[in-house]
């Protein structure tokens, strides 16, 4: 485990030294700040509005961060051949993948914490209470972000970064659709569409911003189940990514 942790910290430092991550975080905070300003233009229930759109913003932020963080890590390593001396001697491919993933996951977690605190500050500045469920809701969004990170890593082993981003966004969108909604995309082949949809993850599991914004209580058991589901899917994606990575030649 020590090699993986060391490599994860190396990845973390690398990502923090690249300025793009700071750019994405600043964009998230500006977006949250903007959401805090809109209610003053006359929309009622502004607390609900801020919370609802703020959590939505965090979700989109998690998606953008996952793409921004991970889509270029392996292709850059391969292009610049920095992966060779690492894989050749100190690390196995599995350790490389886990190290890179954990490093990116830490950055994603830190960004989500910053976003959550930003949302809290905006709520308080506008004179609204911060619902206790906001924290587990952010945790679920983080789990969703980690899952997306695993998806981006999976795509990065067999596609180029320009293709990785739209593929991930597409997966993110269709994974929100119900089976019937997915079939409507191509109603000519309902059986095929149903089969395809059932293979995709169910990201609506992570969506609790609406009930939270409406002041409803989410059972604790549901949070645990959703976290377990998200982590299991993440582990599955990473396993498939590792199998693909192991089958690749490093030319």
């Amino acid at each position, binding site marked *: 485990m*020590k090699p993986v942790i060391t490599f994860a910290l190396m990845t973390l430092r690398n990502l923090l030294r690249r300025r793009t991550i700071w750019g994405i975080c600043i964009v998230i905070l500006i977006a949250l700040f903007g959401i805090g300003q809109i209610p003053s233009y006359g929309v009622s229930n502004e607390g609900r509005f801020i919370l609802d759109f703020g959590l939505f913003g965090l979700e989109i932020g998690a998606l953008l961060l996952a793409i921004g963080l991970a889509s270029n890590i392996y292709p850059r390593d391969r292009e*610049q051949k920095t992966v060779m001396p690492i894989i050749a001697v100190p690390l196995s491919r599995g350790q490389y993948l886990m190290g890179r993933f954990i490093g990116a996951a830490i950055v994603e977690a830190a960004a989500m914490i910053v976003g959550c605190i930003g949302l809290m500050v905006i709520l308080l500045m506008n004179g609204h209470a911060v619902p206790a469920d906001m924290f587990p809701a952010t945790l679920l969004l983080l789990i969703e972000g980690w899952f997306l990170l695993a998806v981006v890593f999976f795509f990065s082993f067999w596609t180029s970064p320009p293709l990785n981003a739209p593929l991930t966004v597409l997966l993110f969108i269709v994974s929100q659709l119900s089976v019937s909604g997915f079939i409507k995309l191509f109603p000519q082949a309902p059986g095929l569409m149903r089969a395809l949809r059932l293979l995709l993850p169910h990201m609506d599991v992570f969506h609790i911003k609406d009930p939270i914004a409406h002041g409803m209580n989410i059972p604790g058991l549901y949070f645990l189940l959703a976290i377990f589901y998200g982590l299991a899917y993440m582990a599955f994606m990473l396993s498939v990514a590792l199998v693909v990575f192991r089958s690749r030649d490093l030319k």
Partner: protein
Amino acid sequence: MGDCPLQVKELEKSFKKKLGLSSFRAVDSISFQLYPGEILGFLGPNGAGKTTTIKCVLGLLKPSAGKVSLWGSHPAAPEVRRRIGYVPENPDYDDLFTPLEFMTMFSSMRRLDMSREQMFVILDRVGLSKWENVRIRSFSKGMKQRVSLALALQSKPELLIMDEPTGGLDPVARKEFRDIILEENQRGVSIFLSSHLLSEVETICDRAVILSEGKKVVEGRLEDLMRTEDHYRITYRVSDEQEELEIHAALLQKTIDDLRVKGYGIISVNPLYRSLEEVFLSATSGVGR
């Protein structure tokens, strides 16, 4: 063959061309081995398959056929990887880090308990003592080579695999690298050295394998490879003066007899040696696929 640091048997590696409809064979059924404590030169023109072979040896490429083993084990086995050091061709490390940071992280990844002082000693040995805290971004190719040598030496390897290690170095640095390689070899390290610099191979290697167009064309001890079978040099004495005569093997016995009849004392008869460059050129010309 568990004692043999490196054994390559009938190794083949093919790459698929675009659309996967046809393939290109980069390495074609080559076999050789590296014995404990020796320096094996791995030579060949550009595109001969040297780097592909090295990547197969390191487990970066999967052989299409044949077998590579390090001390009798699979190259990807963790117990094997701990025993090797690798100096890549054109090393490119994450340029946002410094050599010292790399040393620290690699030592941790390899589970080596190295103190900062020990790292400084290695950095000093490869000539990076003044650059330890400078980001690699500003380094020249030669300095990056020094970083990779430092990282390779860090674990006190039993086998050093070097792919064109002195490619981007100036003559002084090349000499320093050569000295380090020889020092390591004297410590008992087996060295697998791929190089274009024939003079370097001639100076430090015990044996050589020459590839051409993916095939092994020559393997042997350098002395045997460079010795010509058909020409000899006769050294003889003519009234207190020493003279030399180069002669074809077919005329050797007759010439010796003639010199004796004339009363000249024969001092020595030795086979003529070619340069490694001549060996290389004659081995790599005319190999078709």
